[in-house]
């Protein structure tokens, strides 16, 4: 991709200041997002994926402090903008489908009216009533809802329908980027599948860029072109989704993929990851994964591995990535 990236996250470092000390939530994370690209950030709770999502919109928690790094949207550093200018970008350039957003609808207003509010805030010149209604109808059709539902109240929607309406709202101001943070986590599999297919279709049709954030590596496999794997505040591997799934190079990525059960393929023995993620008040020295890493050497506990480019668009932060087996374990369960 030779076009300049839409979004660049450049050596971002973010801490949460707490009574017990600073929590190192995002540590030196860099990635880019191009137009039309679907990027997935995957990792366990506390790995920093939601912190990054919130930072992109500058909606981070009050005790968050950006230590260094930049987030550039079309070359403009969002972290340096005054709040009122940031507000212009929010929703209009970058929209977000929050985790559990389907429960964020105000129960006493019609769903269409709540979307209208977003349109009124961001559309200049303001849309007329007829234009707004027309637009909301088109948005509803796009996400697979009956346009007549716009006149209904949130309680008349099922969970899946409410989440579709959230997506319609996120699309309402033609953003160039959508951040979808666990967009289907609370939903049943069949509804989850419907919504993911819908998002994929919309993204393709509108040429939008999407950042999916999920703990579910199977969901990320289905909807993204590029995957970033996070561990304890660090981005440890970034590359084309197909490539990373076929040949994960970071030991954590390798173990994560080896420990994901699937309904397809041979029934294989899953390799448990020993131990638990570290406390980020006091992260391990060197590589943050070294205490749990079966490939760790002495160097790993002393020196932090840099992100190294190992193939076109495939980067890994590990001293010993060459030691990681070529593909994930296929051994059948005894």
């Amino acid at each position, binding site marked *: 991709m030779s076009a300049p990236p839409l979004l660049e996250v450049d050596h971002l470092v973010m801490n949460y200041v707490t009574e017990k000390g600073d929590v190192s939530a995002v540590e030196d994370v860099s990635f880019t997002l191009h137009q039309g690209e679907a990027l997935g950030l995957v990792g366990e709770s506390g790995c920093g994926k939601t912190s990054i999502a919130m930072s992109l919109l500058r909606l981070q928690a009050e005790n968050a402090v950006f230590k260094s790094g930049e987030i550039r949207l079309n070359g403009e550093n969002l972290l340096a903008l005054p709040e009122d200018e940031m507000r212009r970008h929010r929703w209009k350039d970058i929209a977000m489908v929050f985790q559990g957003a389907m429960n964020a609808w105000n129960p006493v207003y019609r769903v269409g009216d709540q979307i209208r509010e977003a349109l009124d805030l961001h559309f200049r010149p303001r849309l007329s009533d007829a234009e707004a209604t027309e637009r909301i109808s088109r948005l509803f059709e796009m996400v697979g809802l009956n346009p007549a539902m716009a006149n209904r109240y949130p309680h008349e929607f099922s969970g899946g329908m409410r989440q579709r309406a959230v997506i319609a709202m996120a699309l309402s101001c033609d953003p160039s980027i959508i951040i979808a943070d666990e967009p289907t986590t609370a939903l049943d599999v069949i509804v*989850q599948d419907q919504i993911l297919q819908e998002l994929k279709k919309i993204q393709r049709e509108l040429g939008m860029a999407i950042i999916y954030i999920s703990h579910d590596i199977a969901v990320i496999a289905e909807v993204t072109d590029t995957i970033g794997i996070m561990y304890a505040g660090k981005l440890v591997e970034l590359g084309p989704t197909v490539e990373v799934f076929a040949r994960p190079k970071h030991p954590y990525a390798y173990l994560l993929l080896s420990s994901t059960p699937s309904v397809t393929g041979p*029934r294989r023995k899953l390799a448990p990851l020993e131990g638990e993620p570290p406390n980020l008040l006091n992260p391990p020295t060197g590589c943050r994964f070294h205490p749990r890493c079966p490939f760790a050497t002495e160097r790993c506990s002393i020196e932090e591995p840099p992100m190294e480019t190992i193939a076109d668009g495939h980067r890994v932060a590990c001293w010993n990535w060459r030691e990681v087996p070529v593909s994930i374990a296929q051994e059948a369960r005894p």
Partner: protein
Amino acid sequence: MTEPLVKVDRLTKLFPVSRGMFRRPVDFIHAVDGVSFEIAPGESLGLVGESGCGKTTTGRLLVKLMEATSGQILMHDDGSMIDVAHIGSDDLRRFRRRVQMIFQDPYESMNPRRTVFDTVSEPLAVQNIGSLREREDRVAQMLQLVGLTPPNTFLFRYPHELSGGQRQRVAIARALVLDPSFVVADEPTSMLDVSIRISIMELMLELADAFDVSYLYITHDLAVARYMCDRIAVMYLGKIVELGDTEEVLSNPLHPYTRALLSAVPVPDPTYRKPPVEIKGGITKAINPPTECRFIERCPWATDVCHSTEHPPLEDKGGGHFVACHLVEKGAG
């Protein structure tokens, strides 16, 4: 199959829906509706389905945390079968030695003011087993088995000092401390992170062998069920619609709902091309459901037979592959 450990026959649980304070309830949620299955000693049966399908209610009925509206649960115990619905108070204590439960949320299922020792030893105390000294030894031994080592560093910790994975290990130790023959595990790993999840699943498999215990493993996740269970039963609106050996059901799903569920499951392989999901809409509520097939509203293949007859019985379509569908031929299993 040898003599079953658990035999469930036409188990039904209806919840009345109140329409007003002084009115007699006329509407009922058919949470579990005529469910029958058997579990062999040492076997693990997976109960899968979406939220609201009745899988948790079934589990709770089996451990007698709820009373069934009708139907029978028989449990094998020292050569005789106990009828779980008609257990007297003496037998209830004996029943609790044989049957235990592991809950979904390790943050909610443990008393925050009691130590790990209190929690794990409580069943021993209730059953009047052993002296304090012996209970301490037994609890330490259990903690060792569930991987909380060295045990003496965990014995006097409180739940808030433990991670989610460690709490679930304590819950497993508590469930197995009486050496039960049957454990109902309700989504025991769904609250845990992936890297922790597999170690808990592996632990449960190991202990099933070591303790010769049968599981009813309740989960919404077919991939987890595949890993944990010998057979699986798929539930839809209070009914079992398909039941059989895990690999058989997953490789040869016969009920339209099972097929839809399977094609909707995300697969951790970006090169995999999923078949499209053929059904529409979301799960409906089980309030006064129609007498014909429960799945009829969402089924793309429903014919006149489906509309004119009652909900199809769960029938063996060959090789112990049971399906409740008018359109599946005998011998398809």
